[in-house]
């Protein structure tokens, strides 16, 4: 999709977090986060509940503000500068656990809203693009329906299509399948796998270890606001270094 754009740039680092800290009041949520994501890399983030996974990826598109350290996305450093925040948000797509589709707009309008108002795309063109992505996530026939009329899996696929319509170079996923019934999980994961195969840079917070094994270049384990361990999936699952990782893996492998 944006492959042409990718080869043109010299920057092959998509995201860089350098010594990043965040507090909620007194509470130290993220402690000295250092992370470099290369272009086209797929990262899976896992860790116990409350460890700061969501907070970390939400800092990348400024849904949360960090207080110390640097965040550099696509060569642009995130500061309080509204222009830069806008620029970064246009390049970074995000998919939420609870879909967050706009219930007062049709599926098609959900997908064309941002292209029309942010990228100033003519309507016909925005709709054509939207239909293209709705076909990719395999629900073009739902275009005229409202989100409330779709199943959870379908809604999440619309949410993915909606993000893709802005032609982002980076996609963030925050537990995209945890609000779904088991039989709908695979349809969403399939969409994400095909996206990964096309070379999209992705950070996914998920506990779907099968997904991590198939697509991830690196798996990150977080606990208590710190990145405890990171390794390619095979190494991560077969030979986890820290005790906390081992404990966590034994727990989710038991339950899953």
């Amino acid at each position, binding site marked *: 999709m944006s492959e042409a754009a990718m080869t043109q740039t010299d920057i092959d680092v998509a995201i860089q977090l350098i010594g990043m800290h965040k507090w909620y009041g007194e509470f130290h949520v993220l402690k000295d986060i250092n992370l470099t994501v290369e272009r086209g890399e797929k990262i899976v983030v896992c860790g116990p509940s409350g460890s700061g996974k969501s907070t970390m990826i939400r800092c990348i598109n400024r849904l949360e503000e960090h207080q110390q350290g640097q965040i550099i996305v696509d060569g642009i450093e995130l500061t309080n500068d509204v222009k830069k925040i806008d620029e970064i948000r246009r390049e970074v797509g995000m998919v939420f656990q*609870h879909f*967050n589709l706009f219930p007062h707009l049709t599926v098609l309008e959900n997908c064309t809203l941002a292209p029309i108002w942010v990228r100033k795309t003519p309507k016909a063109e925005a709709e054509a693009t939207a239909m293209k992505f709705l076909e990719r996530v395999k629900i073009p026939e739902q275009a005229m329906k409202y989100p409330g009329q779709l199943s959870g899996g379908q809604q999440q696929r619309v949410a993915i299509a909606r993000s893709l319509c802005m032609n982002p170079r980076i996609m963030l996923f925050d537990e995209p399948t945890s609000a779904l019934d088991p039989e709908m999980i695979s349809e969403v994961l399939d969409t994400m796998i095909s996206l990964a195969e096309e070379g999209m840079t992705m950070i996914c917070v998920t506990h779907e270890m099968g997904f991590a094994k198939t697509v991830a270049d690196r798996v990150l384990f977080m606990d208590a606001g710190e990145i405890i361990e990171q390794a390619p999936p095979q190494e991560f699952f077969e030979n986890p270094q820290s005790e906390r990782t081992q404990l966590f893996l034994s727990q989710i492998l038991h339950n899953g």
Partner: protein
Amino acid sequence: MTAEAADLEVAKINKFRDPRIRAIFYQILVIVLIVGFVAYVGHNTAVNLEKRGIASGFNFLSQPAGFGIGIVLLMDFDSQTSTHLDVLLIGIINTLAVSISGIFLATIIGFIFGVLRLSKNWVVNKIAAVYIEVIRNIPLLVQLMFWYFAVLSVLPLVGDSMSIGNNFFVNNRGVNFPAMIPSTGFWLIPVALLVAIVASVLVRNWAHKRQDLTGQIFPVFWVCLGLIIVLPVIASLIMGNPFTMSYPEFGRFSITGGWSLEPEFLALLLGLSIYTGAFIAEIVRSGINAVSHGQTEAAHSLGIRPGLTTRLVILPQALRVIVPPLTSQYLNLTKNSSLATAIGYADITALFAGTSLNQTGQAIECIMITMLFYLSISLLISMFMNWYNKRIALVER
């Protein structure tokens, strides 16, 4: 009992167990009871009136009223020749005047304080909270008396009017300000205003089409605002300012010239809109709160700026929660305007269901007409708001 008869019996019982048949039966029963009751009351009343020699009918409407009225808008009223029908019309106009301006003002106050109540700024937030809590918990009648007796009546006498600039006076007889009195050629100004409004609609449609085709966004709001201000000004210049200004001036006992707003009107308007505004603020706050924060986050993550997010995502969803209770606030305000009697504002209740009724003794007719008036206004407001609500309603599963 033969077997057949027993079957019939069972069939009868079963029929009455069918909810649809039951529903029809009960509906017929209720209608019969209501019709019977109304007929009984009507007959009784007619008989009693006849016994006491009170003529019924609406002839009294064309009789001269023979009393003066404090506030007369849009009409000429003469205590000798004007009839009770004129009194009714003045009452209606006065009620509409205070209700319409009250709805307008209450909506503005309500939306401002509703949004302030959500502010992250502690001071602003608390000010809004105190306003809402204090105002909602004091009876409206007491608040009206407060504005009339405790605020507006203790303002300085006319002779010592407080003045703002040279032409704006505040005293215990109300507020005086300059008036614009049309002279020949004035007609072009309202025509220009009308043209500006039509042009604004056209500009809006054109801007939509252009955005669809080219993607460019046109500053519709500012251009239309400009049109609506500039066109009438140009019209006025073309006709050589076709109006004379009348400035309030001090006479011996009173201020003459200009326009004035009486304290009764001001007190009622302030009381109604500040009271209803507090309720509307609560409605607006909860409407905006009802839209989940996830909606804002999704819009932001797509690169949509905060202002546009409010306009395109939050407001359309909040409005569908806000409109139904807002409608009932508008109805409340209109009906509450009948408390005008307490502070002597000449609304339909005070004038027609009050003075006219006392003078003519036509209680049933006066009360009926007054009730019919409030009912029609309320139904009109409801119809309009229901239409608006349908337009913005949400499609669910």
